C-alpha cells in the first residue's frame, strides 16, 4: 500500500511542492512509501517528481491531491481508483481578485474544492485556518497537519554571504518574505514603511519573493518609495540572508494558510510583527507580536521599538525560540499519524512471534552480485558470506551492475547468489551523469531547502520504488535490516521506513552531500550506526551530533597465501613498484597521484613503476605508469605483497580496505593526507606516510624506501587487529539486541 501525492505544478520553493516534499518525508517516517506526481514540473526535478501519466495506483493505495489554483487535477482525482484525500493550503481571495484576470481561476479553484468534498475520505489542512475552510466547503472532518521548519536551515551560517553583506546595516529594516501576491498586501507594507520613514528617515523595506505580474503598478510604486528593495524570487540562502538582515519581519497577509514564513522568521531570530489573521495567530500562539488592526502610524512606532529596544527584542526572540521548539517535524509527524489513523492508515503492527534461532535479516545495498566492485558493495558481500551461518539473509538491491548509470542489467525479482536469496528492484531512471555533475556544481557549497536537497539525491539515484514499496508492505516480516551507504536514496529513503529495526553502515566520508540536512534522519533514526573507523565516527559526531547510538565495528582482513613473484612474472614487472587498486577515476584522486608521480620520476632516477589496477574512466598514459585494467583477487594480493607501497590517492575514504589489505601482507601505505581515515591508519599503524602535494609525495615514497622493513613489521602487527570474528560478533550482538528488544 502506497500513499501517492499529486501536485498541480511542482516548483521547488513553492508552497505545494514544499508541502508535498515534507509530507513524503513524514510519510516515510510513518512507514509509508509513495511517489510524487505532477502535471507540470520545474526542469531539474524530473527524478524527484514523476509525470502524472506515470501514476499507477494499486489496490489499497491512497492518492492525496495538493489543491491549488489553476489545477486540472481535481477531475483526475475524482476518477482515480483507490482511496483519495485532499491536502489544502489555501486559495487566493475571491474578494481581492474581483475584476482581475485571475478572478475566474480563483472561483474555479474554490468550486473544485467544494466539488471534491463528497468524493474523498481524508481532508488535511495545513493550518487550523485552512482546515476550517475545508469544513466550510463540505469536508466533514478536516485534520490539521502543519508544515514544519528545520531551524538549522535558517542559522546565520546558511545566509548567502554576498546578500547578507549587501543588506547588513544599522538601519531599521522591515523585511517581508514570500510571493508578492494580492494576498501579501504589498500596499500595506508600503504604508507601514512610509510611516517608519517619518521616524527613521534611513529605514528600509526589503521584500523577497516573486511579484505577481498583475501587480505591476504597485511594484512601480514600491520602486519609487525611498528605502524599498524588491529582490524578486530568491534562493534559500538569500532568503535566510533577508530574514537575518531584518530588524522586524512584517506580515500583512489576511489569508495565509500555512504560517510557514512566520516559522522561518522565528527560526532566523528576527522578531515577528504580524496581522492576526489566517494561520498567523495559531502559528505564533503568543510568540512574536500580533496586531488586530492595521493602524500604520501606530504600528510604525511598535516596529521601531521592536527593532531598537534590546530588552524588548530579547524577550520577543526568547519567546519565539520557545515557540519554535514546538513547531518541529515531530509535531507534524504526530498530527499526520493521527490523520492517517483516522482512516485506518496506521503503521502496520509488527507481528509478535517467538524469537527465531536465526533472525531474518534484509541487507539493503545499492548493487550486489559477482564481479561488482566498490568498497561498500564488497563489504556487504563479505559480511553476507560470514553472517550466513547465523542469519537468514535476503539481499535487497537494484538490478544495476554499473554505479555510474544504474542501468537495469540484471533481471528484477528473486534470484540466488552463492546460495543467498537476492531480491532485485528496477531502477526508475538512469543516472544522468552530465546533469548530476551540473546540478552538483550549482548546489554544492550553497545552503538549500529540503526540496532542493532531495532533488539532488533523487538525481543521484538509484530510484527503487519497488524496494520502498516492499519495505513499507513487507518490512514487518524481517527481524532486522543492515543498510549500506548513507549517500544513495536506495538506503537514505529506506532507513526511515524501517528505522526501528535497522543497523546503518554509512560508509561516510567528508563530502559535500554529507552537509545536506536531508540525511540527518538517516543517521538519527536507525537503531544503531556502525562505523568502519574512529575517524568516520568522529565525522558523524561532528556532522550529526544527534545521531543514533554508534560504534566502530571495522572490517576483517584475511590475506590468502601470496606469491609476489607470480604477479611480477604475469605482468612483466621489474624493480620496485607502487600499486594502486581500485576505480581509476578523478574522484579517487588519480590526477593528483599522476602529478606526484611525474615529480618523483623527475627527482629520482630509479623511481619505482606506478602500477594502476582497476576499471579506468580517464586517460592515465604517462612515462613509468602501467595500467593493468581489472585484476583478479589473487593477482591483487600477490601484487600488494610485492609492492614497495600501496598508494591511496583518494581524499574521500571511510575505511580504505586497500590500506588494510596492504598492511596484512606487510606492505606500507602512501596515502592522501586530506583523508582523515588514511591519516588515522598511518598514525596508528606507523606503517604509512601521507602526502599533501606532489613534493610531499616524493618525500613519502623516499621515506618508505628507507624504512620499508620496519614499516612492514608494523603493518602486519596493525592488520592483525582486523579479524572477521570480531566484526561478525559485533554485528550479531547488535542484531540480537534489536531482535530480542
Amino acid at each position, binding site marked *: 500500500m502506497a500513499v501517492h501525492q499529486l501536485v498541480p505544478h511542482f516548483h521547488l520553493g513553492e508552497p505545494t511542492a514544499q508541502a508535498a516534499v515534507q509530507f513524503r518525508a513524514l510519510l516515510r517516517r510513518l512507514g509509508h512509501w509513495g511517489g510524487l506526481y505532477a502535471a507540470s514540473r520545474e526542469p531539474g526535478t524530473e527524478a524527484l517528481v514523476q509525470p502524472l501519466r506515470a501514476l499507477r495506483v494499486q489496490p489499497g493505495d491512497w492518492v492525496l491531491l495538493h489543491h491549488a489554483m489553476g489545477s486540472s487535477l481535481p477531475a483526475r482525482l475524482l476518477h482515480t481508483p483507490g482511496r483519495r484525500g485532499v491536502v489544502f493550503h489555501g486559495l487566493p481571495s475571491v*474578494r481581492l481578485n474581483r475584476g482581475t484576470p485571475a478572478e475566474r481561476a480563483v472561483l474555479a479553484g474554490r468550486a473544485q474544492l467544494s466539488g471534491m468534498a463528497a468524493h474523498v475520505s481524508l481532508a488535511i489542512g495545513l493550518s487550523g485556518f485552512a482546515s476550517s475552510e475545508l469544513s466550510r466547503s463540505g469536508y466533514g472532518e478536516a485534520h490539521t497537519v502543519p508544515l514544519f521548519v528545520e531551524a538549522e536551515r535558517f542559522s546565520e551560517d546558511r545566509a548567502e554571504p554576498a546578500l547578507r553583506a549587501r543588506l547588513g546595516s544599522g538601519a531599521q529594516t522591515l523585511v517581508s518574505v514570500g510571493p508578492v501576491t494580492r494576498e501579501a498586501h504589498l500596499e500595506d507594507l508600503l504604508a507601514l514603511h512610509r510611516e517608519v520613514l517619518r521616524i527613521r528617515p534611513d529605514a528600509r523595506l526589503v521584500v523577497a519573493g516573486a511579484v505577481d505580474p498583475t501587480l505591476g503598478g504597485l511594484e512601480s510604486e514600491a520602486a519609487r518609495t525611498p528605502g524599498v528593495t524588491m529582490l524578486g524570487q530568491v534562493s534559500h540562502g538569500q532568503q535566510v540572508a533577508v530574514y537575518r538582515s531584518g530588524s522586524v519581519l512584517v506580515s500583512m497577509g489576511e489569508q495565509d494558510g500555512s504560517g510557514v514564513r512566520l516559522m522561518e522568521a522565528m527560526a532566523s531570530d528576527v522578531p515577528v510583527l504580524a496581522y492576526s489573521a489566517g494561520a498567523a495567530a495559531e502559528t505564533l500562539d503568543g510568540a512574536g*507580536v500580533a496586531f488586530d488592526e492595521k493602524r500604520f502610524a501606530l504600528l510604525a512606532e*511598535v516596529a521601531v521599538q521592536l527593532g531598537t529596544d534590546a530588552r524588548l527584542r530579547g524577550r520577543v526572540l526568547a519567546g519565539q525560540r520557545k515557540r519554535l521548539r514546538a513547531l518541529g517535524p515531530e509535531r507534524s509527524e504526530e498530527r499526520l499519524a493521527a490523520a492517517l489513523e483516522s482512516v485506518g492508515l496506521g503503521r502496520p503492527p509488527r507481528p509478535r512471534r517467538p524469537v527465531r534461532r536465526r533472525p531474518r535479516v534484509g541487507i539493503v545495498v545499492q548493487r550486489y552480485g559477482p564481479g561488482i566492485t566498490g568498497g561498500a558493495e564488497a563489504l556487504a558481500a563479505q559480511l553476507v558470506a560470514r553472517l550466513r551461518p547465523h542469519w537468514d539473509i535476503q539481499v535487497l538491491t537494484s538490478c544495476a551492475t554499473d554505479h555510474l548509470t544504474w542501468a537495469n542489467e540484471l533481471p528484477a525479482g528473486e534470484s540466488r547468489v552463492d546460495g543467498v536469496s537476492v531480491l532485485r528492484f528496477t531502477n526508475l531512471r538512469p543516472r544522468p551523469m552530465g546533469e548530476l555533475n551540473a546540478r552538483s556544481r550549482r548546489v554544492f557549497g550553497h545552503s538549500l531547502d529540503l526540496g532542493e536537497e532531495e532533488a539532488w539525491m533523487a538525481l543521484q539515484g538509484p530510484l527503487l520504488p519497488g524496494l520502498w514499496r516492499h519495505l513499507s508492505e513487507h518490512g514487518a516480516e524481517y527481524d532486522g535490516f543492515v543498510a549500506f551507504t548513507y549517500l544513495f536514496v536506495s538506503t537514505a529513503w529506506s532507513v526511515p521506513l524501517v528505522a526501528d529495526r535497522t543497523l546503518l553502515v554509512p560508509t561516510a566520508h567528508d563530502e559535500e552531500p554529507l552537509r545536506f540536512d536531508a540525511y540527518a534522519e538517516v543517521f538519527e533514526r536507525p537503531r544503531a550506526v556502525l562505523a568502519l573507523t574512529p575517524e568516520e565516527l568522529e565525522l558523524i559526531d561532528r556532522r550529526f551530533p544527534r545521531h543514533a547510538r554508534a560504534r566502530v565495528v571495522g572490517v576483517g582482513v584475511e590475506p590468502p597465501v601470496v606469491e609476489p613473484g607470480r604477479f611480477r612474472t604475469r605482468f612483466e614487472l621489474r624493480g620496485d613498484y607502487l600499486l594502486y587498486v581500485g576505480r581509476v577515476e578523478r574522484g579517487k584522486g588519480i590526477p593528483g597521484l599522476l602529478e606526484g608521480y611525474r615529480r618523483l620520476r623527475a627527482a629520482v632516477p630509479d623511481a619505482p613503476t606506478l602500477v594502476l589496477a582497476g576499471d579506468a574512466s580517464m586517460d592515465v598514459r604517462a612515462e613509468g605508469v602501467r595500467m593493468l585494467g581489472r585484476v583478479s583477487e589473487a593477482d591483487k594480493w600477490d601484487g600488494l605483497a610485492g609492492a614497495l607501497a600501496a598508494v591511496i590517492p583518494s581524499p574521500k575514504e571511510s575505511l580504505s580496505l586497500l590500506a588494510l589489505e596492504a598492511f596484512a601482507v606487510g606492505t606500507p601505505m602512501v596515502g592522501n593526507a586530506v583523508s582523515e581515515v588514511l591519516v588515522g591508519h598511518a598514525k596508528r599503524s606507523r606503517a604509512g606516510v601521507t602526502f599533501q602535494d606532489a613534493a610531499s609525495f616524493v618525500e613519502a615514497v623516499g621515506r618508505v624506501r628507507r624504512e620499508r622493513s620496519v614499516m612492514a613489521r608494523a603493518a602486519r602487527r596493525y592488520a592483525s587487529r582486523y579479524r572477521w570474528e570480531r566484526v561478525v560478533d559485533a554485528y550479531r550482538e547488535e542484531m540480537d539486541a534489536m531482535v530480542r528488544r
Partner: protein
Amino acid sequence: MKLLGRHIDAGALLRAARERLDARGIRDEALSVETEPEPVLEPLSFLVRALEEDEDPTVPVPAAERGAPASLVRRMFRLACQSLIDEALERQRRFNARVREADAQLSAELIQLRARLETLEGSQRKGKRAARPAPRKPRRNRRG
C-alpha cells in the same frame, strides 16, 4: 488596536507607542479590513455559469487579459476577417451551447436528486425513531 503577545507587556508597548505618536502630533486611523470569509461555491452551478461565460468563441477576450498591443492586432484582424471567423466558429458555438445545455440539464437533475435523497433519508430516520419505543423515564424516589 490590540497588540497580542505572551512575551511582551502589550499594554505598556501600545501606550508608549501612542504617547510617541501624540508627541509627534500624528493621528492614526485604522484601515478597514473585510473579515468576511471567502465564499463557498456549489461546483455544479459554478460550472454551468462558467460554461455560459465562455460559450461564444466569437466574443473577444477582454483586453485586460491579453495586453493592449496584442489586443489591437487581434481587433484589426477581426475587423478584416469577421465573416470568415464567424463562419468557422459558428459550429464551435453550437457545440459549446449543447455542452452547456447538457451540463445544465444533468447537474440540475443531480442537484434535485441529491435533495430528494436527503429528504427521503431524513424521513426514513424520523420513521425509525418513531417506531422505536420511547425510553422509559427513570422512576424518581418520592420523599415523604
